[in-house]
């Protein structure tokens, strides 16, 4: 049986996670004995469909003015049609802001089993085995879901190696009647990222502060270390949410993806959304009181300490 991948694209760019889904779909069909197909929904998206097909995947290209921007209503209509026609064993969607808007809506509308935010997924006969991370990344769970209906799965970005370029992919233009009146959540506009005072993406050294600094005043310690190392200050989400630092300083999936030579995480627990934004940094140093904090999974060197005690000692040791 086939596995259907839902391609994601924004602002004319294919999401990197789509190629990860293609790779995972290939391992699934080796068990289910079908092919991998990708649904690319949009309008004026021929180039994207070709780009996706150049990774050796057959692309079902559904073009309709009603699909020009993502809406769950439009996407669910198109995908319900494809699921009915192809009866795939599984539909793979990236666990992104768009993906976890879409996947539950599709599952509920078509009465399909759903499992989300998987770090891995496998088929054992007809049973889907989903591996997930829970409890602040501190526990892994394997779940068995058994159904004769199409499984809807969201896969966490960044955990599967993406499919590379390969020949043989064909684009098939697929026409589906989309009823625009049934799209209730309407797209209004896209707003692009603000221009930053400091470009985190270009910085060689980033010292980031998280909840562990406890009070806004304690940011001074992080700022002092960043200054001493010729770097800039970043932050994890809770700090920018509290407006202790501007949104442009937020490192992570919803903020900036960074790749400095040195990243020091001060009192950051390491939620998935933060870690995915730093994993390509050269040297990651983490300071956290909790030895089970997930930040230590990605850090190269971890200090089990209270930042409010360690940073003053480090600054003293560095002098000046």
């Amino acid at each position: 049986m086939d596995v259907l991948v839902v391609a994601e694209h924004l602002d004319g760019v294919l999401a990197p996670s789509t190629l990860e889904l293609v790779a995972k779909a290939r391992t699934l069909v080796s068990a289910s004995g079908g092919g991998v197909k990708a649904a690319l929904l949009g309008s004026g998206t021929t180039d994207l469909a070709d780009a996706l097909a150049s990774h050796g995947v057959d692309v079902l290209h559904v073009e309709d003015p009603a699909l020009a921007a993502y809406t769950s209503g439009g996407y669910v209509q198109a995908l319900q049609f494809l699921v009915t026609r192809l009866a795939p064993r599984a539909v793979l969607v990236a666990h992104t802001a768009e993906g976890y808007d879409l996947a539950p809506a599709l599952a509920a509308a078509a009465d399909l089993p759903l499992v989300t935010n998987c770090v891995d997924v496998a088929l054992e006969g007809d049973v889907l085995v989903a591996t997930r991370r829970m409890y602040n990344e501190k526990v892994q769970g394997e779940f068995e879901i058994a159904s004769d209906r199409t499984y809807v799965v969201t896969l966490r970005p960044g955990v599967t190696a993406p499919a590379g370029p390969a020949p043989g992919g064909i684009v098939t233009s697929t026409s589906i009647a989309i009823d625009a009146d049934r799209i209730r959540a309407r797209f209004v506009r896209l707003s692009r990222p603000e221009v930053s005072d400091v470009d985190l993406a270009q910085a060689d050294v980033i010292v980031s502060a998280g909840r562990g600094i406890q009070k806004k005043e304690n940011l001074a310690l992080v700022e002092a270390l960043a200054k001493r190392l010729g770097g800039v200050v970043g932050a994890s989400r809770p700090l920018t949410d509290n407006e202790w630092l501007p949104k442009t300083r937020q490192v992570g999936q919803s903020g900036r993806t960074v790749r400095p030579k040195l990243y020091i995480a001060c009192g950051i627990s390491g939620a998935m959304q933060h870690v995915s934004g730093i994993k390509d940094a050269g040297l990651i140093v983490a300071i956290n009181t909790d030895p089970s904090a997930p930040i230590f999974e990605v850090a190269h060197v971890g200090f089990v300490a209270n930042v409010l005690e360690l940073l003053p000692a480090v600054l003293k040791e560095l002098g000046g």
Partner: protein
Amino acid sequence: MPLDVVVCLKQVPNPDLQFQVAPDGRDIRRDALNYKTNGADEVALEEAVRLKERHGGHVVALTAGPKRAESMLREALAKGADEAVRVAFDDAGSFDAGKVARILAAALRTIKHDLVLTGVQSDDLAGSATGGLVAGLLGLAHASVVTRVEVKGPELEVACELEGGFERITALPMPALLTIQFGANVPRYAPLPAIMKAARASIKEVGPSALGVASWDAFSGPYAFRVRRLSPPPSKGRAELVTGRVDEQAKRLVRLLREKGFVRG
């Protein structure tokens, strides 16, 4: 226009704790946990209360959970919810999001709502599935990862956070369901008199029969769900962990930074 808002809350184990897997491998050990309101749900509650303050209306705090979740509902009442409903679904792990969503959807059919709010993700299971499923089951328009909500006549205009600093502005008719993201607001603290009052408030308890079924199993989806195994995550073992006295740790860190050439002077 006054709004009837229902906010779906979940009580979760404090995510900063260390967790152990129960001997049977089907749940975490729950004997020494403390619980709190799911972080994003607190933001959703605050958004609900602010909408009521701005437009008038009524806020119901709804949960599906064991008796202990009443403390969370009292906190919600103290922070401005008008009414609290606990669906007495007592499944400690609640790993099957589809079942929880079907139960919540059934409960919502019995509560008047223009708007249903919930957090974008739970701190314990991190599925971001329940909100979207509930919307789909009830046929509500929905938007996810919402950081701003504006009521414009009969419609809502919301900002949905995407990756990389992008934002999608979406308009939707009511009734609607929104999953609220951190940063939408900074939740308030409950004033002491409100806490005292909430301690005495009654909480409506809903069992399966009130939802027209004999048992919670009636809300199982079109699949069989089973926990195979919980385990500590396989450690990539990348971080070399440095413990010990702070002054020695500081020396160690500074030595590392000097060796790697990050310290000038």
